[in-house]
C-alpha cells in the first residue's frame, strides 16, 4: 500500500511540471489574438503561448527596455529597410518594426508598402498622381514565398496579416534568401518583392526579441 501511494505521488509530481510547460503555438491562437486586440493582452491571458513564454514584449518590460538599447528609436516612423522602435504618435508606445517599399523606379507613385512587426505585417498597395487622391488597396489574399515554400497569411485586419511561425523560422534561419509575396487585390494579382536588406533587418528584429527561441 505504501509503495502504491509513493508511486502515485511520484506520478503526480512528474506530471505537474510537464503540464505547466505545455506550450501552445501562437499559430493555434490567432482567433484569440484577434479577440484580445493585442499580443500583450493575449500573453496576459494565455502565458503558455510559446511566443509569450520565450519572446520579448510588453509582458517582460525589463528585457524589452534592454532590447531597445540595441536599435534606434524614431518618432512616428523609422527610415526604410531599417529595424527600429518607432514611437506611435497616438499611443506613444515604442513598437519594433521594419518598413520597406517595393515600387517601379519609373513610376514611384505606385507600389507596395510593407511594415513587419514581430508576428504580423501590414501590406498595402498605393497609387497616386500629382493632384489626385492617394488610393490604398488591401490584398484580399496574401501568400508569402521563400526558399521554395509557400505560406498563406491569415488576415487579422484591413491590410494586416499574421506571420506564421514557419515563415518566421525560415526568415531567422536564412535571412538572405529572397522573400516575395503574391498579393491578390480587386485590381488583380501582384508580386511584391522584399529587399534582402529588409528581410535581414526583420530577422535581426526576430532574433533580438528572442523569437528564435520560440521555434
Amino acid at each position, binding site marked *: 500500500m505504501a509503495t502504491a501511494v509513493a508511486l502515485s505521488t511520484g506520478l503526480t509530481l512528474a506530471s505537474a511540471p510537464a503540464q505547466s510547460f505545455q506550450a501552445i503555438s501562437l499559430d493555434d491562437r490567432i482567433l484569440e*489574438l*484577434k479577440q484580445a*486586440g*493585442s*499580443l*500583450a493582452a493575449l500573453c496576459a491571458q494565455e502565458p503558455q503561448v510559446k511566443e509569450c513564454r520565450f519572446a520579448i*514584449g*510588453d509582458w517582460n518590460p525589463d528585457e524589452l527596455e534592454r532590447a531597445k538599447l540595441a536599435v534606434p528609436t524614431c518618432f512616428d516612423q523609422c527610415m526604410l529597410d531599417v529595424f527600429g522602435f518607432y514611437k*506611435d504618435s497616438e499611443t506613444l*508606445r515604442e*513598437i*519594433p*518594426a521594419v518598413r520597406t517599399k517595393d515600387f517601379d523606379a519609373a513610376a514611384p507613385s505606385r507600389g507596395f508598402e510593407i*511594415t513587419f*512587426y*514581430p*508576428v*504580423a*505585417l*501590414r501590406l*498595402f498597395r498605393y497609387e497616386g498622381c500629382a*493632384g*489626385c*487622391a*492617394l*488610393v*490604398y*488597396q*488591401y490584398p*484580399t489574399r496574401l501568400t508569402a514565398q521563400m526558399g521554395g515554400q509557400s505560406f498563406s497569411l491569415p*488576415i*487579422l*485586419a*484591413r*491590410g*494586416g496579416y*499574421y*506571420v506564421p511561425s514557419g515563415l518566421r523560422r525560415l526568415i531567422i534561419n536564412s535571412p538572405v534568401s529572397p522573400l516575395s509575396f503574391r498579393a491578390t487585390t*480587386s485590381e488583380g494579382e501582384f508580386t511584391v518583392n522584399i529587399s534582402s536588406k529588409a528581410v535581414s533587418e526583420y530577422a535581426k528584429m526576430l532574433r533580438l526579441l528572442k523569437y528564435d527561441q520560440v521555434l
Partner: protein
Amino acid sequence: MINIISSIGFGALLAISATPGLAQVGNAGGASSAAAQNVFCEKNLRATVTRVSKSVLPSGYSDLKDVQLNSDFRFPKNDLPYSQALALNDPVRGQSVTVYDQNFVPGGSKVSSAWGRYEITLGGYWLLSAGGGLAERIATFIPFEADILWIPDGNSFLVIKGCNGRFTVTSEIAAALRNYPAGRNGYIRFSTEGTGSAVLSEIGKDTVAAWKKVYANWAPEAPPRIESLGF
C-alpha cells in the same frame, strides 16, 4: 468660363463628400430620426462648438479602395470612380464608406450625389440656354443644393429634410437604402433650396448595389491595430 464654372461646381460637390457629418454622432445604426438634427441647419446666430469622434470602419471593407483624401481645394481634379463603394479616409473627419453617383444630360444639367454611411450630399447645376440659330447662344449654369429628399421605402417613402445639400443618415434611411431592390436603377426625388418643385432623378443600378455595402448593418467598433496584434 463655362468649363470653369462646371469644374468648380463639380469640385465643390465632391469636396462635400459624404464622410461622417459634423452633426452625426455615432453611426447610421445608432441614430434615431428624431435625434438626428443636422447642426448645419440650425438657423440661429449662436456660436457653437461640437466635438465629434472620428469614425472608424470595421472589418468587412478590405475589398474596397481606400481613398486618402489628401488633395485639397487647389487640386480640383478628382478621378474617383462613380457607382462603386469606396472607403474614404478624411484627415479631419475619419473613415467612412461612400458611393458617388451622377446623373446628367451630356453637356447640360447635372445631378451629383454622394451616398455616405453618415451623410448624403446632393447638388449639381442646371444649364439654361438662350439664343441659338443666328443669335449668340448664351448658356447659364445655375448651381443648386438639395434641401428635401424623397426616398422610396417599400410601400412608403421617406421625406428627409436637410440643408445646403446635406442630409444626415439615420438608421431608417440606411435601412431603406440597404433594402432598395437591386439589379435595376433607383429613383429619388429632391427639391432644392428656395423652390417648391420636386425633381425626379434616377440612380444607377451599380450605385443601388453599392448601397448594400455602404449601409450594411454594423455598429461602429474600433478595429484591431495591426501593430498591437503584431507586437
